[in-house]
């Protein structure tokens, strides 16, 4: 421990900590912009500079670590020189920044805007110099890049590299530096997996999801159309944040009510699709185990992971479960079974999904995913953020809404389905049903498999089920998935079943979720907080916590699909994959 002074206050600090960390421990906040804990620690933006007595230049608090040579040093975090420097840094950024804040998708949730306000930037055009010309990249199905709002903080680059993808980076140098793909290729021509983690870490409006809300409004305003909506488990764990609820507050009932108020004719729950996925996936797993099929089997719910597998690990494609994702299953059943039951022409249905995910926008276009080739399983996929904007636009007072209900069937899920939104959730849900299938134990079989819970990048566990030991592994974040796959490929690790989610922490931290500013995410584990909401909903589920006990699922099998893995189920609920040869 060493003794230092921060703003005149005596503090003791552990060696090796950064000035930022020590200041925070002592109740002093230092603003940051490029710094993302454990992801982007490069000291580039100079917003966190502080004065160290005896040092000529200001030092960046985010990367300056204290050592024994700093004993007794005095640090000033709010001196006039520091404040003036931060302000000028912001003004220089603004000199090459599109300042149309009023119409920006990130207005009121923009870190640059917030800092300008907090640090008293009273003149946004102090430096009126050269401006970089840039073009909007709207080539991909899931996102926009508008570099006129980019401040070159490199947070997106770091997030992309952490995902083992790395298709964006800094090109050229100096003032001309731009964040883009190699040779300024359009993003759609690269092996971008569309996870959207770059959007979640962008401090400004440079990166955003493709906004598909106009199509949804058009459908809602068309009296001829039957507009149905489904919501993924993780959406209800984050949507509340857009309306002032504390992180981790589940808002399931208000969300269902808001969707009805927006004018959707039927409000379904992707949880139903998730329960169905478990029925099909558990069946597929047992078939593979019993018939010497390809093992380990790997889950296929995460479209970002599927794209990554197709581009980076094509030799693992036979390991992927052939099950469509819950979104696609829900959509497929809507336009087949439900349309028939309700006597509605599938062509007249507009099927909308609300997802914590931008890769789902891409998933809609996957080959082999359209029901019988005549219609799309799902027509429009919007993110949690887009739904929040729709609710705001419609003038719905979300906080005051009563708890609404989903429609049935297709609108009810079990506790097993709700945890799909957190890493390890699909695995746990599958285990709950696999135990029942293998042992026939029902009432008293194990419900909670806590070894696969939590935010660790890779988790493994072995369970004795029936007469066999089942080894499972769970990875979230594609960097972690890669590490796990390497071990599986080399034979170092023998497993039966693997769950992989593209986003770190699973869907609760998906690329379509409410964006959390770095000032919060650097000090709060979003993944854990939001997951709590899902596990609390699982525990509170009064119908069942196991997919095979879902009344909706039972009904659909009895009236339509016959049994898991049936010919009909294969036709409607399963798909296939193909290696892609895109620029890595």
């Amino acid at each position, binding site marked *: 421990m060493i003794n230092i002074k921060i703003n005149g206050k005596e503090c003791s600090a552990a060696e090796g900590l950064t000035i930022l960390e020590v200041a925070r421990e002592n109740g002093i906040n230092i603003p940051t912009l490029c710094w993302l804990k454990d992801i982007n620690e490069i000291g580039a933006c100079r917003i966190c500079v502080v004065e160290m007595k005896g040092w000529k230049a200001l030092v960046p608090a985010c990367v300056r670590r204290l050592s024994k040579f700093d004993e007794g040093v005095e640090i000033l975090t709010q001196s006039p020189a520091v404040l003036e420097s931060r302000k000028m840094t912001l003004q220089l950024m603004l000199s090459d920044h599109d300042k149309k804040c009023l119409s920006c998708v990130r207005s009121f949730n923009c870190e640059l805007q917030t800092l300008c306000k907090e640090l008293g930037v009273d003149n946004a055009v102090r430096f009126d110099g050269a401006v970089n010309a840039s073009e909007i990249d709207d080539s991909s199905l899931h996102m926009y890049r508008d570099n006129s709002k980019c401040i070159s903080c490199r947070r997106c680059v770091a997030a992309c590299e952490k995902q083992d993808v790395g298709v964006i980076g800094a*090109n*050229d*140098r100096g003032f001309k530096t731009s964040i883009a*793909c*190699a*040779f300024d290729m359009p993003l759609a021509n690269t092996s971008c997996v569309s996870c959207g983690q770059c959007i979640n870490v962008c401090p400004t409006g440079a990166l955003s999801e493709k906004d598909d809300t106009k199509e949804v409004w058009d459908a809602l305003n068309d009296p001829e159309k039957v507009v149905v909506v489904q919501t993924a488990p993780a959406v209800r764990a984050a949507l509340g944040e857009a309306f002032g609820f504390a992180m981790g507050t589940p808002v399931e009932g208000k969300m269902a009510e808001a969707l009805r108020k927006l004018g959707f004719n039927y409000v379904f729950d992707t949880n139903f699709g998730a329960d169905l996925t478990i029925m099909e996936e558990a069946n597929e797993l047992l078939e593979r185990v019993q018939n010497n099929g390809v093992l380990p089997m790997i889950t296929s719910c995460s479209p970002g992971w599927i794209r990554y597998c197709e581009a980076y690990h094509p030799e693992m494609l036979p390991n992927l479960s052939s099950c469509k994702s819950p979104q696609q299953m829900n959509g497929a059943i809507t336009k087949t079974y439900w349309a028939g039951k309700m006597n509605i022409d599938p062509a007249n249905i507009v099927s909308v999904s609300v997802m914590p995910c931008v890769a789902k926008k891409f998933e809609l276009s996957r080959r082999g995913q359209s029901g019988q080739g005549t219609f799309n399983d799902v027509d429009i996929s919007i993110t949690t953020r887009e739904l929040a904007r729709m609710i705001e636009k419609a003038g719905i007072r979300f906080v005051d809404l009563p708890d609404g209900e989903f429609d049935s069937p297709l609108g009810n899920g079990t506790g097993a389905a709700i945890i799909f939104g957190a890493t390890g959730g699909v695995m746990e849900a599958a285990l709950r049903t696999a135990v029942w299938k293998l042992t026939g134990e029902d009432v008293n079989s194990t419900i909670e498999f806590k070894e696969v819970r939590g935010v660790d990048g890779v988790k493994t566990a072995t369970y004795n089920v029936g007469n066999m030991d089942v080894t499972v592994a769970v990875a979230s974040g594609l960097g972690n998935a890669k590490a796990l796959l390497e071990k599986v490929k080399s034979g170092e690790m023998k497993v039966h079943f693997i769950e992989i989610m593209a986003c770190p922490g699973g869907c609760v931290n998906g690329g379509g979720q409410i964006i959390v500013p770095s000032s919060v995410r650097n000090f709060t584990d979003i993944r854990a907080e939001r997951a709590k909401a899902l596990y609390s909903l699982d525990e509170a589920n009064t119908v069942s916590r196991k997919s095979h006990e879902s009344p909706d699922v039972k009904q659909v099998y009895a009236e339509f699909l016959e049994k898991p893995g049936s010919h009909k189920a294969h036709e409607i609920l399963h798909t296939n994959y193909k290696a892609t040869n895109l620029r890595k």
Partner: protein
Amino acid sequence: MALKMCAVPFAGTAQQQKSLMDVIDKYKDVPGALMPVLQEAQEIYGYLPIEVQSMISDEMNVPLEKIYGIVTFYSQFSLSPKGKYKIAVCLGTACYVKGAGDISKKFQDKLGIKAGDVTPDGKFSIEDCRCIGACGLAPVIMINDDVYGRLNGTDEEVNEILAKY
């Protein structure tokens, strides 16, 4: 989006590819060896087009963007081959104050390429260079080994010079 690709078709030989693979083999397990690989690749091909960068990316398991980012950061690397006639415009202090920036611009406009690029027929390339030691003749350019000094940058003058090649 305008692709930053070289207009001249790639014409790498099997011999060049073999040399590149030898270089990559040499550095494959050396951490941080991308720089020497890129330098030697440029020695082999004279420039680093997408074809060469892709080979390095695939063989060294480094994303193409990472390589492109490095290549565009350092001025020692070139995305275009040199032309048959290399126009070097001196941007040293003396030439610069005598309007070398405008001269460079003039040649670029005339040939329809930017500094660092090559004309699609591979005939001319333009690059800005530092002082070539002929300050008395400022502003000065070189085309291969020929020196042209005391330029005034008129259309006639530029046309006259280019017509010689």
